[in-house]
């Protein structure tokens, strides 16, 4: 069986041309980098999760729809909450919710997102959003999260001002971005969601900002297993 490359599948990440990873695996019908050369002293890493499933709903009945499939509803806009299965529910306004797949689960776990889209969507007041395609998803992990973002973003994202479960819809490096503070493998991390067409720009900007902290690109499995 030939090795999986970023172009093996028709679904492709928005930043795969920037990745230096040599090895990929299939997740949800797309190639996800499994590891890159990781230097042991790397304290910060950046990982492309654009190919992991995610979706969103907006409308007066969006919250009801999420509840009906057993997802939690964060109490206020700009808060995130993990579901029992590890999906991350983002509340972006009173009536807009995004759901990001569990970054750390078995293959079968990813189908949950598809179920959300396919089965029980209410006929009115609940509109599926296009965040799988309109937005890229990058994951910043390790120390200095706030300090790295402080080189790009005018909102205080230090852990005191931006505690776990917070969301900031803001501007970083002069593009719009959604920053989510959550846990990955028990460690704090930021999920960054940006315009998919500007993903390569954000990737470059983050790599540049990470340099000072010896940040490196990593694959999803390398992160999961570290």
């Amino acid at each position, binding site marked *: 069986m030939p090795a999986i490359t970023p172009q093996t599948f028709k679904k492709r990440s928005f930043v795969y041309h920037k990745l230096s990873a040599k090895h990929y695996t299939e997740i949800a019908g797309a190639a996800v980098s499994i590891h890159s050369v990781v230097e042991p002293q790397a304290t910060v890493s950046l990982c492309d999760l654009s190919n992991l499933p995610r979706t969103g709903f907006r409308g007066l009945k969006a919250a009801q729809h999420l509840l009906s499939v057993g997802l939690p509803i964060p109490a206020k806009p700009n808060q995130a909450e993990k579901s029992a299965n590890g999906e991350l529910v983002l509340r972006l306004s009173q009536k807009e919710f995004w759901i990001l797949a569990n970054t750390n689960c078995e293959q079968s776990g990813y189908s949950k997102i598809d179920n959300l889209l396919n089965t029980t969507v209410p006929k009115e007041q609940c509109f599926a959003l*296009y965040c799988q395609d*309109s937005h890229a998803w990058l994951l910043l992990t390790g120390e200095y999260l706030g300090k790295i973002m402080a080189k790009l973003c005018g909102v*205080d994202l230090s852990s005191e001002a931006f505690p776990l479960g917070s969301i900031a819809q803001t501007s970083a*490096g002069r*593009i719009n971005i959604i920053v989510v503070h959550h846990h990955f493998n028990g460690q704090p991390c930021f999920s960054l969601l940006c315009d998919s*067409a500007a993903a390569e720009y954000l990737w470059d900007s983050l790599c540049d900002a990470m340099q000072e902290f010896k940040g490196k690109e990593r694959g999803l499995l390398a992160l999961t297993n570290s």
Partner: protein
Amino acid sequence: MSRLNSPAGLLINRRRRISFCFEGKQFEGLAGDTLASALAANDQWLMSRSFKYHRPRGPLTMAGQDANTLVQLEGEPNVLADKIEIAKGLIATGQNCNGSLADDSDAFLGHFSRFMPVGFYYRSFYKMPFSKYKDSWKYWEPTIRRKAGLGELDLTFKPQYYDKEYLFYDVVVVGSGPAGLSAAITSAEAGARVLLVEEQPILGGSLTYHRFDQEGLVADVLRVRLLAEVAQNQRIKVFTKASCNGWFTDNYLPVIQGNRMFKVRAKECIVASGSFEQHVVFRNNDLPGIMMSSAAMRLMKHYAVKPGQSAVVLTGNDDGYFTALELDDQGTDVAAVIDMRENKDIHSNELKTILADRKIDLFTGHTVYEAMASKGNKKVIGVEVRAITGQGTVNNKGFKIACDLVCMSAGYMPVYQLLCQAGAQLSYDDVASEFSLNKLPAHLHIAGSVNATHALSAVLTDGKRAAIIALNNIGLALDQPVPNVECQRKVNFHWPIFSHPKGKDFVDFDEDLQAKDIVNATRLGYRDIQLVKRFSTVGMGPSQGRHSALPTARLVADSTDRNMTQTGVTTARPPFSPEKLAHLAGRIFTPYRRTTMHRRHLALGAKMMPAGNWQRPAFYGHEKDRDQCMHRESVQVRTKVGIIDVSTLGGIELRGPDSAEFMNRIFCYTFLKQPVGKTRYAVLTNEQGVVIDDGVSCRISDEHFYVTATTSGVDNVYRDMMRWNTQWRLDVDITNVTSAFSAVNLAGPDARKVLELLVKDTDLSPEAFPYLAYREGQVVDIPARFLRVGFVGELAYEIHVPSRYGEALWDVLLEAGRAFDIRPFGIETQRLLRLEKGHIIVSQDTDSMSHPAELSLDWAVNRKKPFFVGRRSIDILQAQPQTRKLVGFKLAKDFNIDDKPKEGHLVLADNHLTSKITGNITSCEFSPTLDMIIGLAFVGIHQCAVGNTVYIKVDSGALILADVVKLPFYDPDNLRQQI
């Protein structure tokens, strides 16, 4: 190289010697030395030449606050020698000298100063009478610039890495003197997160160099105690060698340290920036060896450098006495203390007594009237002292004292720059002879000598006071009472200006301005201080009026019979201290957007061009082959099949029961009855009735529309839609899906054949999927939306797919199209193809006045429906006679392509070059298919009939003739797109 004994020399490390080179000569200094202190330790006092008269200059402040020590480093001009630390192998030279610093052959200019008043160069050389050069300034300017130049740029420099970072603090304290330290400690102890910003390498401000008591013990003891408290407090972050260069709204503070600019946001900001010691204006007050008292103190206490062998201290306050004591302690012979105050105004008898005890002569009510210099004005060798008889006047006779050091203490000027940027006002207190600051904005506070508080104990309390007020604002003050601060200590002498008939009594050292230059400016009618500045250039030099603002204000007030509060000082703008453009630029944030097919375009040799922040292929091939590439690509589309990436097209989804009603209100045409599965051209006007965007509306279901918008227009269209519906509250969900879809237009007679190879679930036959229909299906296994559109005038399918599939879509289409010789085409080619069809591009063929009728788009406007955004304005416009119209034109077959008119060229009413302008060219291109030059142009309403000749004025000034023709140019019956 001898140095004073410890504890003098706070900043130096005596064990590390460092050699460096200045003016081609080797010197040795100690680690921690600035270039200026190391040179002074080597008895090299001449460091630069002045701007205009090339006078020798030496250290004035020893704190980086003056231009007297500007030197040239290798690769970097205009470096302050009293700020830059020496490093091994540092090579510096003087700048602004002709020859060497010591032997500047332009120094003769000083003798001509009488003939070179303010504005001399410009007024004399700008239009020189009898000059054979018409524009004589152009001829003289380079020479004059050389004489009055600053350093030299290294044009081969390598860019360095500069960076920016945001910081967030509860309290930011600017300045770490006693007031700043006190404020920072008080704030941190109450629980605030504090940033303490200090320009110097160590904390302490005046505590590091000033002497506050006879024994000279208080400052050190206090500094050590306060610094220990700072060090122990985790909540205080300290930045040294950092400059807070501005104050912007809501305490947004740019702080520069090294190669990084920190953009600091403070909830509360306390400015304890201190004050600048002021000089005395007397003849030759600029000679090397004449410096601020504080500069001599800094030389001793910071660098253990003895500032001279024999000193005269010229003072107007008690601080000069302390300087005299320190000099005496450190082995400098103090020849005399000259106090400008009358004996009765000197309140400290103790100080007089202690001078007497040390056998230091004291002359009260006297001043230095003139300083004497060694040959070439290179060093002060003595002063002439005279009794003061009135404001700025002295006795006819005086006496001379030999010395090699003069220390001046005329008083202090608050470091008001940041505060005035914040809108604070300066008012002058005639009793204290001092400016004070008031009307500060909320959340900005001042403490210490910038707040006209000078006694040490009062300064400490003032820091605490400011901190408690700030803490109260953020709910951290813990019920501490706000202490009362009183300080009666007077530090400013009211008129330390002693004009000399022979001049050289400098007010502004940077710009070589003398007292009479300022007075003369007021006599020429420049009464306003801002005009005095612009005429005389006072305060425009690198030190930005730190020492010239106060004497200038005094001189202007006096000669215009106003008080100083009325005169004021010139506006202080950021930056506070010089900053590099690299600091402002930082890392470059120039966002770019790429479609998912970007790499494929590059691989095919596309010439990319920007479209907004997108990158798009203009055509495929080399830039120099533009016309051939476009020719080839356009013929390909007309005869076979081509493909263009249209992912940048805007996309907006409207869903919900009111989506059709919403479409109907936003766009001009009617959409309530648009059939499902059909597309419809949609024109968007603003409230003025001007066409601002267009696109294609697809009705996916009764309650679901997908509308395209132009690449550059979609963000505004989406915002407008959101705002309208915030007001209308229709039941519709609006989503900008521009980036969610990648799209191509597959166009040409063979387009269907290509698509048939890949699409199995949708009937592509013309009967099942006719022109202007909308379908959904799969390209292989990629979910897709298909739009049959006619923008380029051939059989064409726009294929929109979720962006994650964009690159794969391109790949499969090119692979399948290979059998039909498929070729990609770029947007330049697309523009040509649509021009052949007479289709407009909004914003290229329209302007900010174009209403639908002018564009012959009346058919796309429904004026029978109750409302759409531009409706009422269009009604009003249509009721008036139309003045112009967009028409198609062609040029004669044999017209030379290189001379074709350009966009923006004017259309005239008549065949005279002077006749009325009636319109302009909006598009013009050579069409290989039609073998002629065609275009679109606005023409006068009387010129618009088909067959008319219009006159176009081109770059060369010539008139060319064009014929108005019927649109479209190509395939007039629109048969090809409907195949």
